[in-house]
């Protein structure tokens, strides 16, 4: 049986993918969106979004809901699945999904965003869901009256720590560098909180526990001394990695594993294959920028399909 064929397949469920989907529907481009879930990194935000035009303050979950409602106003086919691989045979792209089979299209927009960057220390994988979390917004309340470590002294680390003050009894922010790098206001709030302790020059070595996490081993990079903290939770907030496993051979990557695009058009090195948002080497990662990049990619797709 032949694969179901579309003009365009959009891979991803964040702002870039949704914006491209809305424009595609309005341009009457026969489009399929393949997304595991909708919202991307917005769903993991621990604090309200206050810089997206039209919304003075809105939670990530609520903004996602509005994006998805808008998309669903249009006749865009959506498949909830993860993407296995993309192939190009002649002028046609074939996209394999994990459970729903193959789909074909004349053009593809990769807008799969980024996943939380893992720490890559012993114990991390073993204790995912048993103390180790990448979603503070989801799991913070479970750690009521417990001691926790937030790994990463960037802005998302500080946001996570501040969100945790509602629940946890003690929060250690562990930063690898000699200084933290977060918004001044967040640093001030954290310094004022009696629950938060900021520790710099800390290299986390190991996450330990039995059934659940019980401690974190680290080394002080100034003194070289090894020590441990008794914590029941470890929230990893050290940035993100682009989700590009399925597209390896068709694009070039920069040193951060981001897809290299033509910044004017969102084109990749493969004709008909475009990329938008946090998965690309676009300089800034913002919801507004991702949405705009999705729109840009869609206009390039429309041009490409007309040829």
């Amino acid at each position, binding site marked *: 049986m032949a694969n179901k064929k579309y003009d365009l397949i959009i891979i991803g469920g964040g702002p870039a993918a949704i914006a491209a989907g809305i424009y595609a529907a309005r341009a009457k481009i026969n489009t399929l969106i393949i997304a595991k879930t909708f919202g991307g990194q917005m769903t993991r935000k621990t604090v309200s979004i206050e810089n997206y035009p039209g919304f003075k303050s809105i*939670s990530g*979950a609520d903004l996602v809901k509005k994006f998805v409602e808008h998309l669903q106003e249009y006749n865009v086919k959506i498949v909830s699945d993860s993407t296995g691989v993309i192939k190009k045979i002649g002028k046609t792209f074939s996209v394999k999904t994990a459970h729903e089979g193959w789909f074909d299209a004349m053009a593809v927009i990769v807008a799969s965003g980024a996943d939380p960057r893992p720490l890559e220390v012993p114990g991390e994988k073993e204790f995912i869901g*048993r103390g180790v979390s990448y*979603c503070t917004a989801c*799991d913070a*309340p*479970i750690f009521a009256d417990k001691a926790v470590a937030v790994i990463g002294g960037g802005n998302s680390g500080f946001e996570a720590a501040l969100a945790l003050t509602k629940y946890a009894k003690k929060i250690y922010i562990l930063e690898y560098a000699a200084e933290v790098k977060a918004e001044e206001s967040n640093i001030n709030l954290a310094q004022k909180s009696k629950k938060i302790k900021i520790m710099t020059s800390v290299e986390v070595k190991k996450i330990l526990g039995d059934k659940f996490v019980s401690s974190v081993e680290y080394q002080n990079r100034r003194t070289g001394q090894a020590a441990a903290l008794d914590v029941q939770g470890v929230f990893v907030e050290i940035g993100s990695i682009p989700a590009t496993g399925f597209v390896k051979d068709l694009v070039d990557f920069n040193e951060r594993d981001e897809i290299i695009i033509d910044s004017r058009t969102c084109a990749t090195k493969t004709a008909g294959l475009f990329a938008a948002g946090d998965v690309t080497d676009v300089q800034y990662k913002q919801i507004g920028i991702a949405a705009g990049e999705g729109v840009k990619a869609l206009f390039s797709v429309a041009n490409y399909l007309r040829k």
Partner: protein
Amino acid sequence: MPKVKVFSTPTCPYCVTLKEFLKKNNIEFEDVNVAEDAAAREEMIEKSQQMGVPVVEIDGQIVIGFDKEKISQLLGIKK
């Protein structure tokens, strides 16, 4: 009707998605907020042997996360 219990937190987007999915398919469920209910929190950790939300209990069977396929299978929801 199967007995369905959802352990969730109000701040967890996947919990919202899960509950919307159940509602859309006319599945009645008990919604437990583990952010406020400490006993339910312990029950969830004990039953699921882990500390992430959402957790859904379907006739005594535990599903961790919004595992749409498994939940659909246990509840007989067709695509």
